[in-house]
């Protein structure tokens, strides 16, 4: 389309809003309600331009003017300028003069556009409207109705993008105000985005309010480390304190949005409880602070002793999913080359087959969700475990007409835009899969939806009691569908990077299969020898430690006592080990059981890369210095290796990165300099990926039980970083169990009663909540909540009224 703007002819795709086309051509048009990621509403009237028509020039908003051939638009005529000044004067007549005390000052579109496009003075001498201010509309967001210019960005975001229409206009005309519904605060997982897109200081965030002025902030772009989508963020700091994260618009991943855990979950970085110096355990079980030399020497000596006595394969490693790829690679090399063991796992017995996650053939990208015709989601509730995937799938369904089939034991955040929802009991997944694949009976409609390709399947574990092999069977089925790609899902931080670095029993760095002699030989030619015994996974490692077959454990950013479903097993394993060393940020239930603890750096305190669930490698940036004497994981491991007599040769993070690019086949050619913008999806063209995993039907057996336990994660829980992020910690649902009302009636349980939930591995006394979205016979317990002991991962559960003595 040829559109002329201020005399310049532009080539514009049909239907593109003229305001966006103009901006891309360097012509800025003032606006407030317009946002490139929201549907245009033409409400604020600041973006008025003159459009030539046969009946003369028409004053029209440029955000709702969609490019058509031959349009001639003027943005700087006297009529337009008068209209702009008029609109800005109108906006300011009821806007309070709060700039000196308003968070937004300095990064405020109203300030900036008033200076650029408004009148020099206001002529208003009447009384402005007044409201009580601010009012809390949720635990995290405060509302100042006097400042609000009623642009509706927050309302539109909450409804259109997040699917949480909890905030809306009330009253009309000059009394219009933002309001929440009675008894329903704005407790959306995505509420923080409204603070970021509010063009004035009407919405402010509790963790940031009054903390800084924008011109005092040091800023760096980085990658979020909470979940595996790898959102692009900007970290804002002042005087070495991290004060704020904001979302950066990366079209490949998060498109500017963050969930509130990613956005506000940074306070742990500056927590007073951060480990600052190495700790060594005393005889009586308490810790004493120690110097690096002493702690490193002790660790190196004990590990060498044990390896020399019994072989390297009695030592295991857990963790590596919470650090950078460089940390993970160093850990992998440490275990293989220095210790001589393949017993290493970045997952906490709570994920999927590492080969499926790291190296599946026909892996989908997040962008593929936009162009699918149908999407199958059979895994966790994405709203709880991956905000970015949730928002992207919702957008695909609501804006692009993509049809969703969702399979889950209870309601999910996507249900309202789902074409076909299948609710089922954990344990019966294999039956459901067979019936769905065949299109039997009630599954015929869902099966028919999946006949229209391209199909993207997001597969994962719906809960921790479900057999992880089921996800592979689902993936195998999905890949028979037309033009199908699959996205095997695991949620923890940099787990994909960790697996790519070989932190899994059957993998070597760069997507090399340990059980393929040719692949191993090629790898060893560059890397050096690797042990040839079969590696244990996390569960195997813990069982081995408990039983005595394994004697020592290296934990890197891992908390198995809380993260492994059978936490009791993890506790026993750690207590039974002869020697345990932990690299961690805090003393946790796991690191407090170690013999030596080293203080580690967070992702904001070191340079490096991470890899997301697409295989996209992105950079994290060092923006603050770690407290005390913290060091990055790779450096601590290098020191230990050095003192064991086998240094790994790492001088800085970049040198680790360079070795990865040299040694790990799938990561060949990845240079830090290339990772600006939206990073690089590996393998790059020219690099090869030795392992291309074909999912196969695992023929998992169905398991049934009178009551089946659904153990699933919620966004907010009692995880380590949550515990130290004070703005968020109290938002976790806490100890509770969900029962279907009919099941509760059979058990004689009423809403709110204390009940005892018991499995073969443990028991918990928690209050009961009714949940009619559950399949009958399913009991849902949110995982890792304060006050809920570990229940293990068995499917069978009993529930009875009353508390155990």
């Amino acid at each position, binding site marked *: 389309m040829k559109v002329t703007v201020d005399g310049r002819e532009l080539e514009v795709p049909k239907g593109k809003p003229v305001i966006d086309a103009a901006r891309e051509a360097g012509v800025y048009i003032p606006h407030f309600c317009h946002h490139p990621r929201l549907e245009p509403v033409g409400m604020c*009237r600041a973006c008025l331009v003159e459009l030539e028509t046969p009946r003369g020039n028409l004053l029209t908003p440029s955000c709702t003017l969609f490019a058509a051939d031959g349009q001639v638009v003027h943005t700087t005529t006297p009529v337009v300028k008068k209209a702009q000044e008029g*609109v800005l004067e109108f906006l300011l007549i*009821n806007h309070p003069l709060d700039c000196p005390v308003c968070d937004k000052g300095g990064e405020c579109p109203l300030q900036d556009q008033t200076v650029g496009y408004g009148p020099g003075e206001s002529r208003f001498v009447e009384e402005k409207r007044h409201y009580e201010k601010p009012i809390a509309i949720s635990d995290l967001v405060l509302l100042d109705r006097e400042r609000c210019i009623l642009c509706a960005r927050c309302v539109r975001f909450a409804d259109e993008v997040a699917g949480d229409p909890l905030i809306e206009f009330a009253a009309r005309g000059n009394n219009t105000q933002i309001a929440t519904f009675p008894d329903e605060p704005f407790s959306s997982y995505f509420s923080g985005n409204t603070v970021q897109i509010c063009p004035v200081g009407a919405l402010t965030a509790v963790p940031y309010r009054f903390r800084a002025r924008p011109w005092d902030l040091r800023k760096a772009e980085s990658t979020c480390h909470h979940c595996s989508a790898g959102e692009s963020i900007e970290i804002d700091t002042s005087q070495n304190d991290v004060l704020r994260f904001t979302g950066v618009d990366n079209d490949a991943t998060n498109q500017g949005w963050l969930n509130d855990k990613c956005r506000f979950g940074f306070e742990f970085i500056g927590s007073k409880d951060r480990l600052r110096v190495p700790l060594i355990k005393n005889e009586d079980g308490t810790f004493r602070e120690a110097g690096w030399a002493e702690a490193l020497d002790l660790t190196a000596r004990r590990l060498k002793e044990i390896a020399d006595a019994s072989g390297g394969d009695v030592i295991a490693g857990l963790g590596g999913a919470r650090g950078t790829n460089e940390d993970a690679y160093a850990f992998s090399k440490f275990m293989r080359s220095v210790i001589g063991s393949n017993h290493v796992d970045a997952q906490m017995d709570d994920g999927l087959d590492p080969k499926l996650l790291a190296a599946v053939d026909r892996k989908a990208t997040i962008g593929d969700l936009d162009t699918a015709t149908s999407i199958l989601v059979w895994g966790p509730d994405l709203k709880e475990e991956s905000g970015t995937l949730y928002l992207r799938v919702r957008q695909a369904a609501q804006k692009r007409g993509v049809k969703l089939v969702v399979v889950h034991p209870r309601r999910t955040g996507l249900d309202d835009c789902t074409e076909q929802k299948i609710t089922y009991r954990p344990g019966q997944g294999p039956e459901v899969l067979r019936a769905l694949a065949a299109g039997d009976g009630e599954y015929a409609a869902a099966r028919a939806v999946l006949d229209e390709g391209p199909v993207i399947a997001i597969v994962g574990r719906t809960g921790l009691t479900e057999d992880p092999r089921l996800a592979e069977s689902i993936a195998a089925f999905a890949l028979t569908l037309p033009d199908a790609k699959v996205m095997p899902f695991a949620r923890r931080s940099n787990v994909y990077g960790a697996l790519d670095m070989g932190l899994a029993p059957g993998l070597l760095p760069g997507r090399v299969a340990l059980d393929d002699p040719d692949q191993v030989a090629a790898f060893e030619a560059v890397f050096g020898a690797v042990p040839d015994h079969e590696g244990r996974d996390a569960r195997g490692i813990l069982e081995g430690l408990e039983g005595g077959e394994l004697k020592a454990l290296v934990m890197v950013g891992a908390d198995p006592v809380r993260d492994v479903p059978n936490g009791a097993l993890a506790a026993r394993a750690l207590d039974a080990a002869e020697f345990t060393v932990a690299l961690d940020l805090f003393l946790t239930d796991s690191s407090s059981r170690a013999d030596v603890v080293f203080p580690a750096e967070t992702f904001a305190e070191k340079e490096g890369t991470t890899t997301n669930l697409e295989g996209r490698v992105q950079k994290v940036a060092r923006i603050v210095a770690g407290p005390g004497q913290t060091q990055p994981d790779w450096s601590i491991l290098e020191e230990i290796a050095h003192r064991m007599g086998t240094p790994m040769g790492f001088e800085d993070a970049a040198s680790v990165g360079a070795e990865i690019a040299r040694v790990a086949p799938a990561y060949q050619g990845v240079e830090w300099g290339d990772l600006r913008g939206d990073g690089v999806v590996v393998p790059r063209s020219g690099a090869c990926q030795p392992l291309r995993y074909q999912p196969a039907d695992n023929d998992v057996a169905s398991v049934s039980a009178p009551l089946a336990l659904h153990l699933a994660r919620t966004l907010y829980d009692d995880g380590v970083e949550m515990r130290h992020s004070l703005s968020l910690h109290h938002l976790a649902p806490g100890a509770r169990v969900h029962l279907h009302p009919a099941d509760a009636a059979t058990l004689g349980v009423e809403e709110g009663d204390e009940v005892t939930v018991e499995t073969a591995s443990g028991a918990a006394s928690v209050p009961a909540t009714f949940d009619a979205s559950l399949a009958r016979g399913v009991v849902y317990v949110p995982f890792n909540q304060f006050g809920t002991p570990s229940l293990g991962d068995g499917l069978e559960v009993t529930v009875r009224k009353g508390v155990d003595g």
Partner: protein
Amino acid sequence: MSAYPQVLTKRMLEHPSDSNTISVYEETGGYRSARMALDMTRDDLVEMVKSSGLIGRGGAGFSAGMKWSFLAPPRPSYLVVNADESEPGTFKDRQLLERDPHQMIEGMIITSVANEVHEAFIYIRGEYPKPARRVQRALAEAYEKGYLGRGIFGTDYDLDVTVHLGGGAYICGEETALINSLEGRRGEPRLKPPYFPAAKGLYMMPTIVNNVETVSNLPFIIEHGADAYKALGDEADTGTFLFSVSGHVAKPGNYELPRGITWRELIFDVAGGIRNGNGLKTWIPGGASAPWFVPSEHLDDPITREACDKAGSMLGSGAVIVMDDTTCVVRAAERVVRFFSHESCGQCTPCREGTTWEEQVLRRIEMGAGREVDADLLLDIADNISPGLAWPPKMTTICPLGPSSVSPITSITKYFKDEVMQHIHGGGCPFE
């Protein structure tokens, strides 16, 4: 009875106590046209209505037949009758709803049959409980006789009518805001394009929105033909027109008149002249949105759409508000502007903020705290809502409500500037 031809009010004048019942309606020839319409083709019906020259009676004055012909193919399509009558000075639909609801219902049947509509709605303003009750009763009577519901009049045409009460907002008389309200959303106008009701209306389906009076004309047109309707009234303004005359006249009320008579005739003959022997100062010709007329310029103009447009105002909904020489025009203007400020939906900046500001300035002038600059300030605020203060108005807004608030301001500035300045210089209202 009346000296003028009667189409809409004939029945209610001849049967003052029970013209709303179905028995009287049918005795007087009602529901013949509906049967005739069911025997005609859609094209013929639309053509007949077009050639009758029937224009919308809601205020916008758009050709009804042409509006019907814009309707996109049904998927399904809907009919919504706009009974939100909220323009100050308008009270004609109220009489039609209370005293001849079957005439409207029959008109709805005809409209529906002409446009393949099987579900129709009547949106009645919430402040009209009695008219709503009368309409509900009439609908029940029609359903009982098989004139609505499954297979009306023994044919296989289905038609259901639902009444919905508004929540008390003038803006819901705007057709897209009405549709939003009917859908359960906030009563806010939609952007046009793309949300023209004929293409994307109720539930995003093709929808006709017609005023009560417009629809009530259809039984006559179908029964007597387009030419008979054209013979009443004017070449350009066919048929009759309901005028709601209020204010300082001796005989305020609703009058069914042909267009083409003069304002003098309307005010001094039909409505009995000014009360108490006072003089005529000014009048609003077509509802609160219309610029005002004055005796020195407009008294002998014919009341036609064309003449009103040429004089810089509009016939609108036929609401004539007459003010005598005891009226303070500043106070009157403030009252009108206050109405618009109160009724603004709040979506767009110039209307929401601008009408409030206009109201505040006018009130200050009336209270005696007006400043020298306020007269020009008022005009500039108005200009920022309606650039150029032109007629028909240009808009910086989403809908014409904001620009409507400008009419009283331009009117008093044009014709009564001295009185405005008297307030400012005198520090108070000279009429107090």
